[in-house]
Protein backbone atom coordinates (compact mmCIF):
# COMPACT_ATOMS: atom_id res chain seq x y z
CA UNK A 1 0.00 0.00 0.00
CA UNK A 2 2.31 2.83 -1.20
CA UNK A 3 -0.25 5.70 -0.88
CA UNK A 4 -1.55 6.89 2.47
CA UNK A 5 -4.67 4.99 3.55
CA UNK A 6 -7.85 7.07 3.43
CA UNK A 7 -9.53 8.65 6.45
CA UNK A 8 -12.52 6.50 7.45
CA UNK A 9 -16.08 7.57 8.28
CA UNK A 10 -17.47 6.41 11.65
CA UNK A 11 -19.06 3.13 10.58
CA UNK A 12 -16.12 2.06 8.41
CA UNK A 13 -13.78 2.88 11.28
CA UNK A 14 -15.92 0.81 13.66
CA UNK A 15 -15.84 -2.23 11.35
CA UNK A 16 -12.10 -1.79 10.78
CA UNK A 17 -11.52 -1.70 14.57
CA UNK A 18 -13.33 -5.06 14.89
CA UNK A 19 -11.28 -6.46 11.96
CA UNK A 20 -8.03 -5.44 13.68
CA UNK A 21 -9.21 -7.26 16.83
CA UNK A 22 -10.34 -10.42 15.01
CA UNK A 23 -7.72 -10.77 12.25
CA UNK A 24 -8.77 -13.05 9.36
CA UNK A 25 -12.48 -13.68 9.79
CA UNK A 26 -15.89 -13.93 8.15
CA UNK A 27 -18.44 -11.15 7.72
CA UNK A 28 -20.79 -13.05 10.07
CA UNK A 29 -18.20 -12.93 12.90
CA UNK A 30 -17.71 -9.19 12.34
CA UNK A 31 -21.47 -8.61 12.56
CA UNK A 32 -21.52 -10.44 15.89
CA UNK A 33 -18.57 -8.40 17.18
CA UNK A 34 -20.12 -5.11 16.03
CA UNK A 35 -23.44 -6.02 17.70
CA UNK A 36 -21.80 -7.24 20.91
CA UNK A 37 -22.45 -3.85 22.52
CA UNK A 38 -26.12 -4.03 23.71
CA UNK A 39 -26.31 -0.26 24.30
CA UNK A 40 -26.37 0.41 20.53
CA UNK A 41 -28.94 -0.58 17.94
CA UNK A 42 -27.79 -3.70 16.06
CA UNK A 43 -26.35 -3.46 12.55
CA UNK A 44 -27.81 -5.63 9.81
CA UNK A 45 -25.62 -8.30 8.18
CA UNK A 46 -26.00 -6.65 4.76
CA UNK A 47 -24.93 -3.25 6.17
CA UNK A 48 -21.74 -4.67 7.65
CA UNK A 49 -21.02 -6.71 4.50
CA UNK A 50 -21.41 -3.59 2.34
CA UNK A 51 -19.03 -1.70 4.62
CA UNK A 52 -16.51 -4.55 4.39
CA UNK A 53 -16.74 -4.57 0.60
CA UNK A 54 -16.14 -0.81 0.65
CA UNK A 55 -13.09 -1.31 2.87
CA UNK A 56 -11.83 -3.96 0.45
CA UNK A 57 -12.25 -1.49 -2.44
CA UNK A 58 -10.24 1.06 -0.44
CA UNK A 59 -7.43 -1.47 -0.09
CA UNK A 60 -7.75 -1.90 3.67
CA UNK A 61 -9.18 -5.44 3.63
CA UNK A 62 -8.23 -8.46 1.58
CA UNK A 63 -10.82 -11.12 0.71
CA UNK A 64 -10.07 -14.82 0.38
CA UNK A 65 -12.74 -16.94 -1.29
CA UNK A 66 -13.82 -19.93 0.78
CA UNK A 67 -16.02 -22.95 -0.04
CA UNK A 68 -18.93 -21.71 2.12
CA UNK A 69 -18.14 -18.09 2.86
CA UNK A 70 -15.43 -15.51 2.14
CA UNK A 71 -12.81 -14.56 4.71
CA UNK A 72 -11.57 -11.01 5.17
CA UNK A 73 -8.25 -9.87 6.61
CA UNK A 74 -6.76 -6.42 7.35
CA UNK A 75 -4.01 -5.46 4.87
CA UNK A 76 -2.18 -3.27 7.41
CA UNK A 77 -2.09 -3.31 11.20
CA UNK A 78 -3.87 -0.71 13.29
CA UNK A 79 -0.54 0.85 14.33
CA UNK A 80 0.57 1.11 10.68
CA UNK A 81 -2.76 2.66 9.73
CA UNK A 82 -2.64 5.27 12.52
CA UNK A 83 0.96 6.18 11.67
CA UNK A 84 0.31 6.43 7.93
CA UNK A 85 -2.78 8.58 8.55
CA UNK A 86 -0.79 10.90 10.81
CA UNK A 87 1.89 11.18 8.12
CA UNK A 88 -0.72 12.09 5.52
CA UNK A 89 -2.75 14.49 7.66
CA UNK A 90 -0.49 17.56 7.42
CA UNK A 91 -0.15 17.17 3.64
CA UNK A 92 -3.92 16.80 3.30
CA UNK A 93 -4.57 19.95 5.36
CA UNK A 94 -2.17 21.89 3.11
CA UNK A 95 -3.80 20.40 -0.02
CA UNK A 96 -7.31 21.22 1.19
CA UNK A 97 -6.90 24.58 2.93
CA UNK A 98 -3.76 26.00 1.31
CA UNK A 99 -0.30 26.61 2.65
CA UNK A 100 -1.40 29.58 4.72
CA UNK A 101 -3.48 27.30 6.97
CA UNK A 102 -0.14 26.36 8.50
CA UNK A 103 2.08 29.31 9.30
CA UNK A 104 4.97 27.29 7.99
CA UNK A 105 8.62 28.07 7.61
CA UNK A 106 8.96 27.13 3.96
CA UNK A 107 6.00 28.18 1.87
CA UNK A 108 5.82 27.83 -1.88
CA UNK A 109 7.19 30.94 -3.57
CA UNK A 110 7.85 31.83 -7.19
CA UNK A 111 11.16 30.56 -8.57
CA UNK A 112 14.07 32.71 -7.45
CA UNK A 113 16.19 34.69 -9.88
CA UNK A 114 19.75 33.29 -10.24
CA UNK A 115 21.35 36.27 -8.47
CA UNK A 116 19.29 35.85 -5.28
CA UNK A 117 19.66 32.04 -5.38
CA UNK A 118 23.43 32.38 -5.52
CA UNK A 119 23.44 35.02 -2.77
CA UNK A 120 21.36 32.73 -0.53
CA UNK A 121 23.71 29.80 -1.13
CA UNK A 122 26.76 31.95 -0.32
CA UNK A 123 25.07 33.09 2.90
CA UNK A 124 24.09 29.50 3.77
CA UNK A 125 27.66 28.35 3.19
CA UNK A 126 28.87 30.80 5.82
Amino acid at each position, binding site marked *: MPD*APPALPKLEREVMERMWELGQTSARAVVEAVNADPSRSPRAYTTVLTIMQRLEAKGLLERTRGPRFDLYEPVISRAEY*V*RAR*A*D*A*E*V*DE*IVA*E*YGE*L*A*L*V*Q*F*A*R*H*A*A*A*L*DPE*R*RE*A*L*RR*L*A*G*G
Partner: protein
Amino acid sequence: MIGAAAVRRLELALAGLVATAALLALVVIVDVLRFHAPAILGGEGVTLDRHTVALALLLAVDAVVGVRAGRSLARQAAAQRRLRRLAVRELRTVGRHTVAIVGGSQPRAFCAGLVRPRVCVTEPALTRLTTGELQAVVEHEVCHARRRDPLRLAIAQIAADGFGFRGLPARQAAVADLAADAAAVAALGSPQPLAAAMVRLREPAPERIDHLLGRPLPVPPRTVSACALTVLGGLVALAVALALLPNDPALPLLLLPPLAVPALLAVRAAR
Protein backbone atom coordinates in the same frame (compact mmCIF):
# COMPACT_ATOMS: atom_id res chain seq x y z
CA MET B 1 17.30 43.31 10.01
CA ILE B 2 13.87 44.86 9.90
CA GLY B 3 12.95 46.81 13.05
CA ALA B 4 9.77 46.60 15.08
CA ALA B 5 8.68 50.07 13.87
CA ALA B 6 8.97 49.06 10.20
CA VAL B 7 7.00 45.83 10.84
CA ARG B 8 4.31 47.91 12.58
CA ARG B 9 4.10 50.28 9.59
CA LEU B 10 3.81 47.38 7.15
CA GLU B 11 1.12 45.74 9.25
CA LEU B 12 -0.75 49.00 9.76
CA ALA B 13 -0.95 49.40 5.99
CA LEU B 14 -2.57 45.94 5.70
CA ALA B 15 -4.74 46.24 8.79
CA GLY B 16 -5.77 49.75 7.70
CA LEU B 17 -7.17 48.36 4.46
CA VAL B 18 -9.24 45.73 6.29
CA ALA B 19 -10.36 48.13 9.03
CA THR B 20 -11.40 50.77 6.48
CA ALA B 21 -13.51 48.27 4.55
CA ALA B 22 -15.05 46.91 7.77
CA LEU B 23 -15.81 50.40 9.12
CA LEU B 24 -17.42 51.47 5.86
CA ALA B 25 -19.63 48.38 6.03
CA LEU B 26 -20.47 49.21 9.67
CA VAL B 27 -21.35 52.83 8.81
CA VAL B 28 -23.82 51.58 6.19
CA ILE B 29 -25.41 49.12 8.63
CA VAL B 30 -25.73 51.70 11.44
CA ASP B 31 -27.17 54.32 9.06
CA VAL B 32 -29.71 51.83 7.72
CA LEU B 33 -30.73 50.52 11.15
CA ARG B 34 -31.16 53.94 12.75
CA PHE B 35 -32.64 56.08 10.00
CA HIS B 36 -33.62 54.14 6.88
CA ALA B 37 -34.92 50.73 7.91
CA PRO B 38 -38.65 51.49 7.28
CA ALA B 39 -37.95 52.96 3.84
CA ILE B 40 -35.71 50.05 2.79
CA LEU B 41 -38.06 47.42 4.25
CA GLY B 42 -41.00 49.07 2.43
CA GLY B 43 -43.01 50.64 5.23
CA GLU B 44 -46.23 52.43 4.38
CA GLY B 45 -46.16 56.08 3.35
CA VAL B 46 -42.40 56.19 3.01
CA THR B 47 -40.83 57.59 -0.14
CA LEU B 48 -37.53 56.36 -1.45
CA ASP B 49 -34.95 59.09 -2.00
CA ARG B 50 -31.57 58.71 -3.70
CA HIS B 51 -29.74 58.43 -0.35
CA THR B 52 -31.96 55.51 0.70
CA VAL B 53 -31.57 53.72 -2.63
CA ALA B 54 -27.78 54.09 -2.41
CA LEU B 55 -27.83 52.73 1.14
CA ALA B 56 -30.00 49.78 0.09
CA LEU B 57 -27.48 48.90 -2.62
CA LEU B 58 -24.58 49.21 -0.16
CA LEU B 59 -26.49 47.02 2.30
CA ALA B 60 -26.84 44.37 -0.40
CA VAL B 61 -23.06 44.53 -0.93
CA ASP B 62 -22.59 44.18 2.86
CA ALA B 63 -24.81 41.09 2.82
CA VAL B 64 -22.71 39.46 0.09
CA VAL B 65 -19.53 40.29 2.00
CA GLY B 66 -21.08 38.84 5.16
CA VAL B 67 -22.04 35.56 3.48
CA ARG B 68 -18.60 35.16 1.90
CA ALA B 69 -16.83 35.99 5.16
CA GLY B 70 -19.09 33.52 7.00
CA ARG B 71 -18.16 30.74 4.61
CA SER B 72 -14.50 31.60 5.00
CA LEU B 73 -14.87 31.56 8.79
CA ALA B 74 -16.40 28.07 8.65
CA ARG B 75 -13.52 26.90 6.47
CA GLN B 76 -10.94 28.40 8.82
CA ALA B 77 -12.66 26.71 11.77
CA ALA B 78 -12.59 23.34 9.98
CA ALA B 79 -8.87 23.71 9.22
CA GLN B 80 -8.18 24.63 12.85
CA ARG B 81 -10.16 21.61 14.10
CA ARG B 82 -8.02 19.32 11.97
CA LEU B 83 -4.82 21.01 13.09
CA ARG B 84 -5.83 20.60 16.75
CA ARG B 85 -6.35 16.86 16.17
CA LEU B 86 -2.85 16.32 14.75
CA ALA B 87 -1.24 13.44 16.64
CA VAL B 88 1.88 14.56 18.52
CA ARG B 89 4.52 11.79 18.48
CA GLU B 90 6.76 13.40 21.07
CA LEU B 91 7.64 16.71 22.68
CA ARG B 92 11.23 17.74 22.11
CA THR B 93 13.31 20.60 23.49
CA VAL B 94 15.06 22.62 20.80
CA GLY B 95 17.21 25.40 22.24
CA ARG B 96 15.01 27.04 24.90
CA HIS B 97 11.73 25.90 23.38
CA THR B 98 9.51 22.82 23.45
CA VAL B 99 8.22 21.74 20.06
CA ALA B 100 5.73 19.05 19.05
CA ILE B 101 7.04 16.39 16.68
CA VAL B 102 4.32 15.28 14.26
CA GLY B 103 4.14 12.84 11.38
CA GLY B 104 4.42 13.93 7.78
CA SER B 105 5.83 12.90 4.45
CA GLN B 106 7.46 16.30 3.81
CA PRO B 107 9.98 18.21 5.94
CA ARG B 108 7.93 21.02 7.46
CA ALA B 109 8.00 23.30 10.47
CA PHE B 110 4.93 25.31 11.30
CA CYS B 111 3.00 27.18 13.94
CA ALA B 112 -0.63 26.20 14.48
CA GLY B 113 -3.40 27.25 16.84
CA LEU B 114 -5.38 30.46 17.12
CA VAL B 115 -5.58 30.82 20.90
CA ARG B 116 -2.51 28.92 22.10
CA PRO B 117 -0.28 28.52 19.07
CA ARG B 118 2.26 25.69 19.23
CA VAL B 119 5.31 24.99 17.12
CA CYS B 120 5.27 21.69 15.22
CA VAL B 121 8.06 20.01 13.29
CA THR B 122 7.53 16.95 11.09
CA GLU B 123 9.80 13.93 11.45
CA PRO B 124 11.37 14.34 7.98
CA ALA B 125 12.44 17.89 8.96
CA LEU B 126 14.33 16.47 11.96
CA THR B 127 16.41 14.24 9.72
CA ARG B 128 16.90 16.88 7.00
CA LEU B 129 18.13 19.79 9.19
CA THR B 130 21.31 20.16 11.23
CA THR B 131 21.00 21.16 14.90
CA GLY B 132 21.77 24.83 14.15
CA GLU B 133 19.34 24.95 11.22
CA LEU B 134 16.60 23.34 13.31
CA GLN B 135 17.21 25.90 16.05
CA ALA B 136 16.91 28.74 13.54
CA VAL B 137 13.68 27.32 12.13
CA VAL B 138 12.21 26.82 15.62
CA GLU B 139 13.15 30.39 16.67
CA HIS B 140 11.39 31.60 13.50
CA GLU B 141 8.24 29.63 14.34
CA VAL B 142 8.32 30.61 18.02
CA CYS B 143 8.23 34.24 16.89
CA HIS B 144 5.10 33.41 14.82
CA ALA B 145 3.57 31.86 17.94
CA ARG B 146 4.45 34.87 20.10
CA ARG B 147 2.94 37.26 17.55
CA ARG B 148 -0.16 35.00 17.21
CA ASP B 149 0.35 34.94 13.46
CA PRO B 150 -2.09 32.01 12.92
CA LEU B 151 -4.87 34.27 14.27
CA ARG B 152 -3.71 37.29 12.24
CA LEU B 153 -3.56 35.18 9.09
CA ALA B 154 -6.99 33.67 9.73
CA ILE B 155 -8.46 37.19 10.06
CA ALA B 156 -6.63 38.29 6.90
CA GLN B 157 -8.00 35.26 5.04
CA ILE B 158 -11.58 35.92 6.18
CA ALA B 159 -11.29 39.60 5.22
CA ALA B 160 -9.75 38.63 1.88
CA ASP B 161 -12.55 36.17 1.12
CA GLY B 162 -15.24 38.58 2.31
CA PHE B 163 -14.09 41.79 0.62
CA GLY B 164 -12.22 40.21 -2.29
CA PHE B 165 -8.73 41.41 -1.28
CA ARG B 166 -7.03 38.47 -2.96
CA GLY B 167 -3.39 39.23 -2.19
CA LEU B 168 -3.92 40.24 1.43
CA PRO B 169 -3.16 36.92 3.25
CA ALA B 170 0.05 36.36 1.27
CA ARG B 171 1.19 39.91 2.10
CA GLN B 172 0.33 39.45 5.77
CA ALA B 173 2.30 36.16 5.75
CA ALA B 174 5.26 37.91 4.08
CA VAL B 175 5.39 40.62 6.78
CA ALA B 176 5.08 37.97 9.51
CA ASP B 177 7.95 36.01 7.93
CA LEU B 178 10.20 39.09 7.89
CA ALA B 179 9.54 39.67 11.61
CA ALA B 180 10.12 35.96 12.39
CA ASP B 181 13.35 35.86 10.33
CA ALA B 182 14.62 38.92 12.23
CA ALA B 183 13.84 37.19 15.55
CA ALA B 184 15.62 33.98 14.47
CA VAL B 185 18.74 35.87 13.36
CA ALA B 186 18.75 37.85 16.62
CA ALA B 187 18.41 34.65 18.68
CA LEU B 188 21.22 32.81 16.86
CA GLY B 189 23.45 35.83 16.28
CA SER B 190 23.90 35.04 12.56
CA PRO B 191 21.76 34.68 9.42
CA GLN B 192 23.77 31.64 8.26
CA PRO B 193 21.75 28.81 9.94
CA LEU B 194 18.47 30.34 8.76
CA ALA B 195 19.75 30.71 5.19
CA ALA B 196 21.05 27.12 5.28
CA ALA B 197 17.62 25.89 6.45
CA MET B 198 15.98 27.80 3.59
CA VAL B 199 18.31 26.13 1.07
CA ARG B 200 17.62 22.73 2.57
CA LEU B 201 13.84 22.99 2.90
CA ARG B 202 12.49 25.24 0.16
CA GLU B 203 13.57 28.45 -1.55
CA PRO B 204 11.88 31.38 0.17
CA ALA B 205 10.22 34.46 -1.26
CA PRO B 206 12.72 37.02 -2.68
CA GLU B 207 12.05 39.65 0.00
CA ARG B 208 13.21 37.24 2.73
CA ILE B 209 16.57 36.82 0.99
CA ASP B 210 16.91 40.60 0.50
CA HIS B 211 16.12 40.95 4.20
CA LEU B 212 18.79 38.43 5.25
CA LEU B 213 21.29 40.17 2.98
CA GLY B 214 20.53 43.52 4.60
CA ARG B 215 19.11 45.05 1.42
CA PRO B 216 16.51 47.82 1.82
CA LEU B 217 12.87 46.69 1.92
CA PRO B 218 9.91 48.66 0.56
CA VAL B 219 8.53 49.88 3.90
CA PRO B 220 5.78 52.51 3.62
CA PRO B 221 6.82 55.93 4.95
CA ARG B 222 5.36 57.38 8.15
CA THR B 223 3.05 59.65 6.15
CA VAL B 224 1.16 56.54 4.97
CA SER B 225 0.60 55.42 8.57
CA ALA B 226 -0.52 58.94 9.54
CA CYS B 227 -2.95 59.14 6.61
CA ALA B 228 -4.30 55.63 7.30
CA LEU B 229 -4.86 56.48 10.97
CA THR B 230 -6.63 59.74 10.00
CA VAL B 231 -9.01 57.86 7.71
CA LEU B 232 -9.71 55.23 10.36
CA GLY B 233 -10.26 57.88 13.04
CA GLY B 234 -12.70 59.69 10.76
CA LEU B 235 -14.64 56.53 10.05
CA VAL B 236 -14.84 55.62 13.74
CA ALA B 237 -16.13 59.14 14.49
CA LEU B 238 -18.66 58.77 11.68
CA ALA B 239 -19.92 55.41 13.01
CA VAL B 240 -20.19 56.78 16.58
CA ALA B 241 -22.00 59.92 15.38
CA LEU B 242 -24.49 57.86 13.38
CA ALA B 243 -25.10 55.61 16.38
CA LEU B 244 -25.62 58.43 18.91
CA LEU B 245 -27.10 61.49 17.18
CA PRO B 246 -30.88 61.81 17.43
CA ASN B 247 -31.54 62.75 13.79
CA ASP B 248 -29.95 61.60 10.53
CA PRO B 249 -27.00 63.98 10.34
CA ALA B 250 -26.19 63.17 6.71
CA LEU B 251 -22.63 62.92 8.00
CA PRO B 252 -21.43 60.53 5.32
CA LEU B 253 -21.91 63.26 2.76
CA LEU B 254 -20.11 65.82 4.93
CA LEU B 255 -17.25 63.64 6.17
CA LEU B 256 -16.39 61.42 3.23
CA PRO B 257 -14.82 64.16 1.03
CA PRO B 258 -12.36 65.25 3.76
CA LEU B 259 -11.56 61.57 4.45
CA ALA B 260 -10.90 60.96 0.79
CA VAL B 261 -7.95 63.40 0.88
CA PRO B 262 -5.78 61.45 3.38
CA ALA B 263 -6.91 58.19 1.78
CA LEU B 264 -5.65 59.35 -1.61
CA LEU B 265 -2.43 60.64 -0.02
CA ALA B 266 -1.90 57.22 1.63
CA VAL B 267 -2.43 55.36 -1.65
CA ARG B 268 -0.08 57.77 -3.49
CA ALA B 269 2.65 57.55 -0.83
CA ALA B 270 2.41 53.74 -0.65
CA ARG B 271 3.21 53.34 -4.35
